[in-house]
C-alpha cells in the first residue's frame, strides 16, 4: 500500500500526521485555543461532509460533478421552512406564455399561483416528508431530463448544465422568498453539553452522528450490494453494464434521488444552527468539492473525513486569527478551500490524462468565418448601429451599450480559455475585480496617470490569473472548474471583502474619470455628439474602439498557429502532446490572454458610470458570466458579442425592458433555465444556432436558385 503512493503523496501524508500531532499536543496544553474550535467546527464540518458525500453519490451515478448540489439543499430547506412556518408550499416560478402580450397590453390576464396553502403551519414530520419528496423529484428531473441526455456529452456541457441548475434554483429561491436569511425550528435538541470542559450545542453532535451513519451506510451499500456494483458498472460503461443485466439507468436515477434527498436533509437539519440564505450552501459547496476531490470523487469515507477536517480547520484558523496578533487580519482561512483543492490537484493530478476519454459528443464548433465582402458589409452595419446606439440613442440605451461592450470583453476572455482551449474557468470576474480595485487605488491613492495605472492594473490581473492557472497544468475538465471556482472565492474573500488591500476602504469605489493628456472621456465628460446627458457618448465610443480591437484580436488568434494549437489541446491533450504541442505552455498562454481580457474588462468597469463593490466580482458574478458566455456561444467571437447583449443591464435587457416586460428580477432564473436547455440540446449557443439557421436558409435559397436557372456547372 505504502509503496503505491507517489513521493508527493507520501510527503503529504507525513506532513498531515505531523500537523495532527502538533494539534493534539496544543489541545492538551491549551484547551481553549486548540480544542474548542474542533467542537465548534463540527457543525460546519458536518454540512461540508454531507454535501461532499452527496457529490460523490452523484458522481458515481453519472460522472457529473454537480455544482447545483448546494442549491438543491437551499431550495429544499426553504420549502421546509415555508411549510413549517406558514404552511405554504412554494410553486416554482413557471414561464407565463402570455407574458409578452401582458407586457405590451399592460394588463394581467392570468396570475400563476406562487404558493399552495396547506393550513397555518405544518408539524415538523409531514413538512420534512414533503420537503424531501420535493428533493427526490428534483433528483429525478436532474437525472432524466438533464444528465441522462448528457451522458456522452463533453465535460464542459455537464458542468454548464449543473451550473444552470444552481443558477435556476437559487434564482427560484430569491424570487419566492427574497434574499433574507431564514431558519427553521430545530429538529434535534439543542441544550449544550460539556465535553472535556468545553460547552457545545447538543444538536451539533446529533448532526455529526447522522452524517457518520449515512456515510457508513453508503459505504456498505456501495461496497456490498448488487445495486452498488450496478452503479459503478453503469458509470464506467453503460452499454456493457446493460449487457451484463444491470439496469444502469435505474441505478443512476436512484442515486440522483439519494444525493438530492441527502442534500435536502442536511439543509433542513443544519438550518436551525446556521440559518440559510439563498447562496449559503453553494458557498459551502466549494469546500465540499475540495473534500470530494480529495476522495477522488469516489471514496465516501475520505470525503466525509476531509469535509469534517475542513470545517474544523476553518474554525481553528478563525480562532488563531483572533488570538495571535502576528497573523495579518486578511481572512487567510477564506483561502483554505483553494489551498486544499490546489494541493489535492498537485499531489493527485496528472499532467496528461492517462487514458483517452471515451467517445464523447462534439465540443462546440470554434467556427472561424472567411472574410468575404458580404461579411465586411455586415460588420460595418453592425458597428454603425452600435455607434448610433452608444452616441445618439436615449440614455438608457447608451448605458446598456456600455454595459454590453464591457460584457463582450469579459465574455471574450472565456472564449479564449474555455472555448478555444477547453479549460473551464470560474474566476474571470475575480480577475476583473483585481484590476478594477487596483486601477481605482492606483489612480486615487497613488495618483498615477492613466497610461501607467491601467497597464499596471491589467498586469496584476494577469499575474493573479497565471498563479491560479498553475493547477490547470495537472488537471482538466470539471476538476479545473473546481480549482478556479475556489481561487475566485479566495481572491474575492481576501481582497475585495475587507479593507486594507489596495489602500482602499471597504465599500464602494470608482476610478474616477478617465483622461489622457487632459482630455477627459468618461461617462460624465462632455462629448461633441449626442444630447449631452449622462452617460455621454465619449466613453461609449472609446469602448467601441476597445471592443472592436479585442474582437479582431481574438478572431486573429483563432486563425493563427497558436490558435490552432489551442484547438488541438482542446480536442485531445495526449494527441496534441504527441504532435509536438507543448500542452502546458499553450494552457498558460491561454490563461494569460484570457486574464488579460478579463482584467481589461475590470478596468473598464472601474471607469464606468457609478461605483462598484466587491459583490460585482464575487464567484456568482463569475458563474453568471460563464452562463451568459455559454448561452451566447462559448467558442466564437460572435458568441461573445451575443453574450454581451445578454449581459446584466446590457442592451438586450434594456430593449426587452423597454419594449416588452421588465425581466430584471427574472434574469438569473431565465438564464439558468436556458443555460440548462443550451447545454442539453444545443451546445453551440445562440450564435451557433443562428449560424446554422442562416446556413440552412442559404442552402435552401441556393437550391431554389439552381432549380430556376441551371448553370453550366450543373450541366
Amino acid at each position, binding site marked *: 500500500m505504502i509503496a503505491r503512493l507517489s513521493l508527493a503523496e507520501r510527503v503529504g501524508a507525513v506532513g498531515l500526521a505531523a500537523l495532527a500531532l502538533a494539534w493534539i499536543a496544543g489541545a492538551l496544553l491549551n484547551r481553549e485555543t486548540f480544542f474548542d474550535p474542533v467542537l465548534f467546527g463540527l457543525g460546519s464540518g458536518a454540512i461540508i461532509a454531507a454535501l461532499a458525500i452527496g457529490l460523490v453519490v452523484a458522481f458515481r451515478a453519472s460522472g457529473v460533478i454537480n455544482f447545483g448540489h448546494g442549491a438543491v439543499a437551499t431550495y429544499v430547506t426553504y420549502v421546509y421552512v415555508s411549510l413549517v412556518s406558514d404552511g405554504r408550499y412554494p410553486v416554482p416560478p413557471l414561464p407565463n406564455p402570455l407574458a409578452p402580450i401582458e407586457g405590451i397590453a399592460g394588463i394581467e390576464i392570468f396570475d400563476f399561483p406562487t404558493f399552495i396553502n396547506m393550513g397555518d403551519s405544518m408539524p415538523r414530520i409531514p413538512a420534512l416528508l414533503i420537503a424531501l419528496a420535493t428533493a427526490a423529484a428534483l433528483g429525478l428531473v436532474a437525472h432524466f431530463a438533464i444528465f441522462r441526455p448528457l451522458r456522452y456529452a463533453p465535460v464542459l456541457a455537464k458542468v454548464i448544465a449543473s451550473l444552470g441548475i444552481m443558477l435556476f434554483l437559487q434564482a427560484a429561491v430569491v424570487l419566492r422568498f427574497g434574499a433574507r436569511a431564514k431558519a427553521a425550528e430545530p429538529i434535534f435538541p439543542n441544550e449544550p453539553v460539556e465535553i472535556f470542559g468545553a460547552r457545545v450545542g447538543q444538536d451539533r453532535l446529533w448532526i455529526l452522528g447522522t452524517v457518520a451513519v449515512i456515510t457508513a451506510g453508503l459505504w456498505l451499500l456501495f461496497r456490498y450490494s448488487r445495486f452498488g456494483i450496478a452503479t459503478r458498472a453503469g458509470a464506467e460503461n453503460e452499454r456493457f453494464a446493460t449487457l451484463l443485466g444491470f439496469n444502469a439507468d435505474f441505478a443512476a436515477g436512484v442515486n440522483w434521488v439519494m444525493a438530492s434527498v441527502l442534500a435536502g436533509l442536511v439543509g433542513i437539519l443544519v438550518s436551525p444552527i446556521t440559518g440559510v440564505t439563498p447562496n449559503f450552501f453553494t458557498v459551502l459547496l466549494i469546500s465540499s468539492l475540495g473534500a470530494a476531490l480529495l476522495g477522488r470523487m469516489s471514496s465516501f469515507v475520505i470525503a466525509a473525513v476531509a469535509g469534517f477536517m475542513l470545517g474544523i480547520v476553518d474554525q481553528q484558523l478563525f480562532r488563531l486569527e483572533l488570538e495571535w496578533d502576528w497573523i495579518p487580519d486578511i481572512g487567510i482561512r477564506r483561502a483554505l478551500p483553494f489551498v486544499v483543492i490546489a494541493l489535492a490537484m498537485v499531489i493527485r493530478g496528472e499532467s496528461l490524462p492517462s487514458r483517452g476519454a471515451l467517445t464523447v459528443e462534439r465540443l462546440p464548433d470554434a467556427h472561424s468565418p472567411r472574410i468575404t465582402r458580404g461579411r465586411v458589409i455586415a460588420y460595418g452595419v453592425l458597428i454603425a448601429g452600435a455607434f448610433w446606439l452608444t452616441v445618439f440613442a436615449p440614455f438608457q440605451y447608451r448605458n446598456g451599450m456600455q454595459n454590453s461592450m464591457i460584457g463582450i470583453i469579459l465574455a471574450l476572455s472565456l472564449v479564449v480559455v474555455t472555448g478555444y482551449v477547453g479549460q473551464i474557468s470560474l474566476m474571470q470576474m475575480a480577475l476583473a475585480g483585481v484590476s478594477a480595485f487596483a486601477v481605482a487605488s492606483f489612480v486615487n491613492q497613488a495618483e498615477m496617470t492613466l497610461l501607467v495605472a491601467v497597464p499596471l492594473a491589467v498586469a496584476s490581473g494577469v499575474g493573479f490569473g497565471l498563479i491560479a492557472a498553475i493547477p490547470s497544468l495537472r488537471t482538466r475538465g470539471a476538476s479545473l472548474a473546481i480549482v478556479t471556482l475556489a481561487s475566485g472565492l479566495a481572491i474575492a474573500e481576501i481582497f475585495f471583502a475587507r479593507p486594507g488591500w489596495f489602500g482602499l476602504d471597504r465599500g464602494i469605489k470608482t476610478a474616477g474619470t478617465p483622461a489622457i493628456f487632459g482630455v477627459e472621456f468618461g461617462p460624465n465628460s462632455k462629448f461633441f455628439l449626442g444630447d449631452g446627458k449622462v452617460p455621454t457618448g465619449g466613453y461609449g465610443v472609446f469602448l467601441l474602439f476597445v471592443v472592436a480591437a479585442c474582437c479582431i484580436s481574438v478572431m486573429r488568434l483563432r486563425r493563427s498557429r497558436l490558435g*490552432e494549437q489551442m*484547438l488541438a489541446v482542446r480536442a485531445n491533450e495526449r494527441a496534441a502532446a504527441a504532435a509536438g504541442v507543448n500542452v502546458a505552455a499553450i494552457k498558460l498562454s491561454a490563461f494569460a490572454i484570457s486574464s488579460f481580457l478579463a482584467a481589461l474588462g475590470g478596468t473598464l468597469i472601474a471607469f464606468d458610470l457609478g461605483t462598484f463593490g466587491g459583490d460585482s466580482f464575487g464567484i456568482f458574478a463569475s458563474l453568471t458570466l460563464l452562463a451568459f458566455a455559454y448561452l451566447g456561444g462559448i467558442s466564437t467571437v460572435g458568441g461573445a458579442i451575443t453574450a454581451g447583449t445578454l449581459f446584466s443591464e446590457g442592451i438586450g435587457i434594456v430593449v426587452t425592458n423597454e419594449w416588452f416586460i421588465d425581466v430584471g428580477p427574472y434574469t438569473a432564473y431565465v438564464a439558468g433555465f436556458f443555460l440548462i436547455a443550451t447545454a442539453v440540446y444545443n451546445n453551440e449557443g445562440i450564435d451557433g444556432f443562428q449560424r446554422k439557421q442562416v446556413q440552412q436558409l442559404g442552402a435552401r435559397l441556393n437550391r431554389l436558385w439552381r432549380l430556376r436557372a441551371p448553370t453550366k456547372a450543373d450541366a
Partner: protein
Amino acid sequence: MSWFVLIKRSDLLCVWRLAMSDAVLATVGLKVRFGGLVAVDDVSLECRRGRLTGLIGPNGAGKTTFIDAVTGFLPNNSKGSVLLEGEEVFGCSPHRLSHYGLTRTWQTLELFDDVTVRSNLDIASRRLTVGSALLDYFRPRQRAERVDEVLELLNLGDIAERQPRELSQGQRKLVGVGRALVAESSNILLLDEPAAGLDKAETEWFGAQLRCLVDQGYTMLVVDHDMGLVLNVCDFIHMLVFGQLTASGTPDVMRNNADVIAAYLGHSGTG
C-alpha cells in the same frame, strides 16, 4: 552518458551492439510497472534505419504500453533507457520527443476533430516558440511546404480541406500517419495498431502505403494484431508475450517459430 552506469551488466553487450548497428531507435531494459503488474519487462529492441519493424503479441502483451513508455507518456511508471539516434531520450516529455522526430499514431486515432486535415498536419509540422507564435500572429502565415509534401506523399491532397469526421476509417488512419510524419525532423514513426478497424482490402492497401513510405527511406515500428499485415510488409519482427520479448526474426523465421505459432497463430487463424 548517465544511463551507462544505471543499466544492468547484461545490457552492456546490447549497448555495444547498438553502437555498432544502424539503429534509429533502441530501448535498453525498458520496464513498465502499474502497481504490482509488470506490463513491459526488460524489453531491449532496436529499429534500424529505413526498415519496417513489426511488434506483435497477443492481447495484453504490453505492445501499446511499450509505445506509450517510449514516447514519454508513462513517466512515473517506466524506467530503462530509450536511445534515439544514439542519444538518451528517456524521461523527455512527449512534445519534446516529437520535436526530436520520435512520433506516433494511436489505435483510437485521436485526430483533432475540430480542424481540417491540413490543420491537423499543420499543428504537428512546426514547433511553436514565443517568437514564432508572435511572428505568425502579426504576419500572414506562410504555407508550410512540408505539409503539402506529406499530403502529396499520402495522396491526401483532395481531402485536405475536409474535417476528419467526414472521412473513411482508412483515410483517417492515413491522416494519423501523416500527422506523425510531418514533424520537422521525422526520425521514426511508431504506429499503434494501424490496421484495427480496417477490412481486409483496406488493410492490404494500407500496408502497401506503409511499405511505399519505408521504401522512400522512412523508419517505422508497427504494432499490430493483423499477422497478414505484419508478415507481409515488415522487414523484421519482434514478439512480446506478457511484457517479455520472446522471439525476434525476419518474417520467414517468425512464420515458422514455434513460440509465435503457439502464442499467436495457433488460435488466431489469420496470416
